[in-house]
């Protein structure tokens, strides 16, 4: 391990040792209402960046996976144990991601973006249609005895998992293949890399995480309807947070998630009707001014000042 990796591992261990105790603080209710979205977006943005960082394919399908996960729970709660439903959500996310990946990852970037945006909308319309025609209701109740703090702990476990898997992938042949594909897909083919397979595997990993997050969050809403579960806003927020932090490091998205989630609390409270507009403006500003994300910006400033030592993974 390099010195950077040892430092990051120590920081991660400390963070994951402290964070589970937060719900035991006095008056932790408000803290939880901030910590849950932060943990949720950390998992979503980090798993999104696992795929989109190296490939530069901007996926707007997060809401599709998230919604499918939430609906698996909503549809099966009371019939099947909750833990099984969370696993099933992961399986559903994997299947959807594999199908979408096989169908679209041969497309060039722009078509892929549009397809993933359309996918979330299509699944939403499909679920709405099924509900209108067969169940006679617009949404589903998710009534459980799962509390906020349990949801928070579940999200922490997912966050630890996403970092662990990301770390393993980055050190594996698959991660090396993804870096080569991101640099030059033609060279990748000529050194024997199966690009389509590598991309589908990572897309499936990120799809599983988004679906499981949807399943974990479902009990928090108690009532689930398509416009909530498949909200395109969620997909855009994940992209913005990941890009804001930076997708070239595993912990990059986290740097975007924390300030953005806090800022969003303020914006949603002060300008409840203009949130989507502000989201668009934020997107433009980030892509235009800090295309490498905050982490990339800091690193290039450090390099210019002669402090950093080249690049590596971690």
């Amino acid at each position, binding site marked *: 391990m390099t010195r950077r990796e040892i430092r990051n591992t120590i920081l991660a261990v400390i963070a994951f040792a402290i964070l589970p105790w937060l719900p035991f603080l006095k008056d932790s209710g408000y803290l939880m209402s901030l910590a849950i979205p932060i943990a949720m977006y950390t998992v979503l943005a980090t798993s999104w960046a696992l795929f989109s960082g190296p490939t530069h394919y901007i996926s707007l399908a997060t809401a599709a996976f998230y919604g499918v996960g939430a609906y698996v729970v909503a549809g099966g709660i009371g019939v099947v144990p909750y833990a099984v439903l969370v696993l099933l959500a992961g399986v559903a996310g994997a299947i959807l991601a594999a199908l979408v990946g096989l169908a679209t990852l041969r497309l060039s970037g722009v078509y892929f973006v549009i397809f993933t945006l359309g996918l979330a909308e299509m699944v939403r319309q499909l679920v709405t249609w099924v509900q209108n025609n067969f169940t006679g209701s617009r949404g589903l109740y998710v009534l459980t005895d799962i509390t906020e703090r349990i949801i928070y702990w579940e999200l922490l476990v997912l966050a630890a998992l996403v970092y662990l898997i990301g770390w393993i992938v980055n050190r594996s042949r698959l991660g090396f293949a993804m870096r080569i594909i991101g640099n030059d897909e033609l060279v990748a*083919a*000529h050194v024997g890399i199966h690009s389509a397979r590598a991309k589908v595997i990572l897309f499936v990993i990120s799809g599983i995480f988004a679906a499981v997050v949807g399943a974990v969050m479902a009990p928090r809403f108690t009532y689930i309807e398509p416009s909530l579960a498949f909200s395109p806003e969620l997909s855009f927020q994940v992209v913005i947070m990941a890009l804001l932090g930076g997708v070239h490091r595993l912990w990059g998205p986290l740097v975007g998630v924390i300030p953005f989630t806090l800022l969003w609390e303020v914006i949603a409270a002060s300008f409840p009707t203009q949130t989507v507009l502000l989201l668009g403006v934020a997107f433009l500003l980030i892509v235009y001014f800090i295309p490498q994300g905050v982490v990339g910006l800091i690193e290039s400033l450090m390099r210019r000042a002669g402090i950093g030592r080249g690049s590596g993974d971690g």
Partner: protein
Amino acid sequence: MAEKKVLLDVQSLGKQFGGLRAVDGVSFMVREHEVMGLIGPNGSGKTTMMNMISGALKPTDGDIYLEDRLISQRSAREIATAGVARTFQLVRLLPSLSVVENVMAGAVFGHKRLWGRELEKYAVRQLERVGLAQAIHRPVSTLTYIDEKRVELARALASDPVILLLDEWLAGLNVTEMQTGIALVRSLRDDGRTIIVVEHVMDAIRSLCDRCVVMSSGAKIAEGTPEEALSNSEVVRAYLGDANA
């Protein structure tokens, strides 16, 4: 002398781009430890030929056999894995990877499959082989043009290819670099590598190639030792026009 083993057998290969017949019924063989030159004027179909052998393009008709295996309709990835490595006319390095990582890329997924410490040591040896041991951890953006070419060559060598395709590897080098470059490719030949070179530089062709195939307007017009091929009257006509024939 016993006949050497045929490694690559190209049989009446053709490529059609819409109305243009870029390569038309070209056949030749490449034997073990041989350096074969693919030469001809601009637009004669040499690079299309290289692209078909490496799988970047699929031939419209004809067959290619690598060590008796039919590879002509296979993908670039499968052909690379079968043992064909190439460099590109315009150097294609991986800009966000270091020099040694660029070379490692050649020895993980295809014909050679290494990983871990062994892989890095092996990649360093390839860099030493092409005379670039001092630049191992540099970013590729800091390299000179000939060193970029060396990295690409090292990456191709790293796969331990059955056949190495060098597409105008010497192009763009200055006079001194050219001599270094020719010596380097010749040293690969002395190692027993089997190589197909596309070249314009006559000095390089004469000093490197055991045999040449000359192409013009997509067809093979001559084949033989460099002396035979270059003195062929049709070849002279293709290069210089009728007045000089």
